[in-house]
């Protein structure tokens, strides 16, 4: 990642991930739930604002898509940063059951929930 003629908004996320553009495709779905395992105060002072922001946001379990949107980071970058924070034990990601969308009990629960809105 040497000089780049491109606007900071585009380049910066890749600086954050040291040039890595994506976590493995198969990892976190957009709806995967991210939650912090530590309070933000426990992050090192050297933590990037993005890492701190993600840990703050995820004190309540939050979807990957929402982390990206609220942090205004592209999805790929978000996945990489979340993966890094998982690796150091600051976050956990619940990718959910792969067959939730075809689970009869879950669909019944969902149907009741939508009807009750």
């Amino acid at each position, binding site marked *: 990642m040497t000089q*780049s003629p*491109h606007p900071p908004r*585009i*380049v910066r*996320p*890749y600086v954050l991930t040291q*040039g890595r*553009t*994506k976590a493995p495709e198969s990892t976190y*779905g*957009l*709806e*995967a*739930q991210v*939650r912090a*395992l*530590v309070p933000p105060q*426990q*992050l*090192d002072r*050297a*933590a*990037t604002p993005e*890492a701190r922001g993600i840990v703050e946001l995820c004190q309540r*379990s939050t*979807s990957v*898509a*929402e982390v*990206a*949107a*609220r942090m205004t980071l*592209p*999805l*790929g*970058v978000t996945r990489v940063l979340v993966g*890094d*924070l998982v*690796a*150091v*034990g*600051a976050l*956990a990601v*619940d990718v*959910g059951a*792969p067959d*939730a*969308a*075809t*689970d*009869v009990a*879950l*669909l*019944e*629960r*969902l*149907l009741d*929930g*939508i*009807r009750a*809105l």
Partner: protein
Amino acid sequence: MESVLSDRLRQTGWGAAPRAVRQVPVAMKVVVAGGFAVGKTTFVGAISEIDPLRTEAQITVESLGIDNAGPINGKTGTTVAMDFGRITIGPDMVLYLFGTPGQDRFWFMWDELARGSIGGVVLVDTRRLEDCFPAVDYFEALDVPFVVACNLFDGVATHHPREVREALRVPSNTPVVLCDARRKSHVQETLVLLVEGALRKATAASGRSAR
């Protein structure tokens, strides 16, 4: 992520610390598709508990299957945006509604949205029916439940749902309904139809596998 956490903190052992016992809700997902400006964001916003949020993915030529393109060269990439809303069903479940990007050439993005989804809502503007063909084809090919919702622009149905059904040749078990995307009750009813369809399908499948 060496810069994020000091060694000192890591040595004091977060990993070993008792993990917070917190319930993580089950996430369910629905894809809201259709042509350009057909009311996808309106549909999501009518029922979402949050204003629809926008997520961007930066697409490199690499991810389109062409080698040797990095994200650093902005010329090789583009940005694809989608929006989504959230509905908390309860402490145990949350439903996300994802609107597809306006341009349907970003098929891989549809795959990303559709993976693990219950199914889709295809919004139709009956004045330009053909705009929804790609979405209908997509869900049919994927063999996931979907509902065709004719958006009531100007509050009038310019085509009867039966005509739309005939024009689209959707399977008979796919509901075709009128839906004013601005009205929560219409959106709600459309989602009910979708989940009912998904439930029928799941019930039939579990019956088969139980036998």
